[in-house]
């Protein structure tokens, strides 16, 4: 009984992390029509930068949460630069843009290997969250519950941003019909930079708060990117609700798969994708087939 409860909590935690990663991915996809293949690298970069600040690798040490904010802002700025100076060179050529993001992801992976070496870096859980909560007979690590709470807060904040603000309305207009949005005077290309930076920052944030439970290692980018892709294929591009449902679903299948069929965990992930592609190619909550 306890085993199942712990597994469920772990699944929801992992789903929450995935949501932080995939919501930005999905927004970028929805707006710019490209899967940003650097997203895994941005996640890893955030984890490495944040982790080194927390353990004081480069001479200065910081509180976990401050480090998280710092790493997210740094990576968000990097995302804005990538969009502005590389992707902007290829307007409208989505294939070339995807390939550029792929090339950057290799450069980022090798850069991390060069700076941080091949050994995994373990990041301690932030102060005050190292303990456990007892509910009934079950024991839950506090930090995992905190991740779930953060994911829910971010989800609500993103929903407010998209649904209640002027910027959100412009982004939604851009996702639905970029040409029409341009006609009514929305500077869609400026939105590209904003959304790209937002997505990059969220990915980096997910990376650092995932650090204590996943640890940080070379190849983390290639472990996370397919999961983000799966979430978007299942949930539908550009849909916040889709990313949420998709993340939780993938979180459950991944964790239960790993616990019950460890050798085939990656393969089991394939099943929901197969079903969605066959029955609803635009994704559960998507508007159009990519």
């Amino acid at each position, binding site marked *: 009984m306890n085993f199942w409860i712990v597994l469920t909590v772990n699944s929801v935690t992992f789903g929450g992390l995935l949501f932080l990663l995939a919501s930005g991915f999905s927004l970028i996809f929805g707006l710019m029509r490209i*899967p940003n293949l650097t997203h895994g690298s941005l996640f890893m970069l955030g984890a490495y930068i944040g982790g080194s600040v927390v353990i004081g690798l480069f001479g200065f040490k910081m509180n976990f949460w401050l480090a998280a904010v710092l790493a997210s802002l740094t990576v968000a700025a990097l995302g804005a630069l990538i969009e502005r100076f590389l992707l902007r060179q290829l307007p409208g050529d*989505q294939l070339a843009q995807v390939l550029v993001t*792929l*090339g950057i992801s290799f450069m980022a992976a090798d850069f991390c290997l060069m700076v941080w070496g091949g050994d995994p870096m373990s990041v301690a859980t932030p102060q005050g969250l190292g303990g456990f909560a007892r509910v009934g007979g079950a024991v839950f690590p506090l930090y995992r519950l905190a991740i779930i709470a953060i994911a829910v807060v971010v989800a609500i904040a993103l929903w407010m941003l998209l649904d209640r603000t002027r910027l959100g309305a412009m982004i939604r207009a851009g996702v639905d019909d970029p040409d029409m949005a341009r006609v009514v005077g929305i500077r869609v290309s400026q939105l590209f930079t904003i959304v790209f930076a937002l997505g990059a920052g969220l990915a980096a944030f997910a990376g650092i708060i995932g650090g204590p439970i996943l640890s940080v290692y070379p190849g983390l980018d290639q472990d996370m990117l397919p999961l983000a*892709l799966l979430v978007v*294929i299942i949930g539908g591009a550009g849909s916040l609700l889709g990313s949420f449902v998709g993340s939780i679903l993938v979180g459950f299948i991944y964790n239960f798969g790993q616990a019950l069929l460890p*050798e085939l965990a990656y*393969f089991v992930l394939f099943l929901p994708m197969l079903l969605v592609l*066959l029955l609803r*190619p635009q994704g559960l909550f998507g508007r159009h087939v990519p």
Partner: protein
Amino acid sequence: MIEIFSATNKLRFIALAIALVALISLPFWVSGIYYINVGSQILFFAVFALGLNILVGYAGLVSLGHAGLFGISAYATAYMLQQGFGHTTAVAVALVIGLASMALFAVLSLRSSGIGFIMITLALGQILWGLAYRWISVTDGDNGIPVRGRPAPFGYSLTDPVNFYYASLIIFIVAVAMVFIFVRSPFGAALMGTRDQPRRMNALGYHVWMIRFYACLFSGLLTAVSGILFVYYTNFISPQTLALTSSAEVLLMVISGGPGTLLGPIVGATLVVVIKTVVSGFIERWNFLLGAIFVAIVILVPEGIVPGSIRLWRLIVRKRAAAPPAPAATTERTP
């Protein structure tokens, strides 16, 4: 007009003959087994790139999961040999598994084209990688599967690097001939039609999905063949071969050389293999360079090296051809 065509044809024929002679005589004029092995690598990676080019260049479908297909055939060969089967059985099973996986890939990913196709093939390729990495009871995980010995068709043992080179060369020539015939066949024309105008082709009564599906199978066949050659060459297969970097590497071969040309993937494969071999002697950071070249090619020479140089060559030739009449016109005017 006809003269020009026959002249270029003659030129092409001469170039082809020179290339063939150079390739056949390669083991005689390069010194050392090392370079012969580099030659073999170029040949089977060129077959791989030719296979991917069927999709990227002629069908307009960019796949980022081809290393998975390449790897699954290699794994199948290694696994069958490890289980004690003979080379013929192992190769046959590997071809069947490679083609069956390609068919499955195609059924899933052909539900969309363009960006959707990239995403789905990438996810599928990563799943095959995950399978190779985690399904330890079959693949032995990160340790990979070693292969002992190479086959000896008609009594020529491929353990000898020169014999292996010639075997790769024969397969390479057959692959080039197949692609050459394929591209000029009505089917090839139909495939390029579905690349440029899928809706119009559909309206004309062509079954766009089926045409793309067959193109995938053809691509899968070349990929599987090159995967089998690869595993016999390295005598080892590990999950790294199926990683996204490998898919990107072969895509770089196609894109750098020139997608949709016969020569492009061959030039691209040569370039990538040579850079990789030369560079890995000096620095460890091959992936960084791979990424940088990728970005540079996509932004600076998006059409690829072969079409790029042809355009440049034509520009020079036209200038030279246009130059003589100019003085003639002035002499006419002067008297």
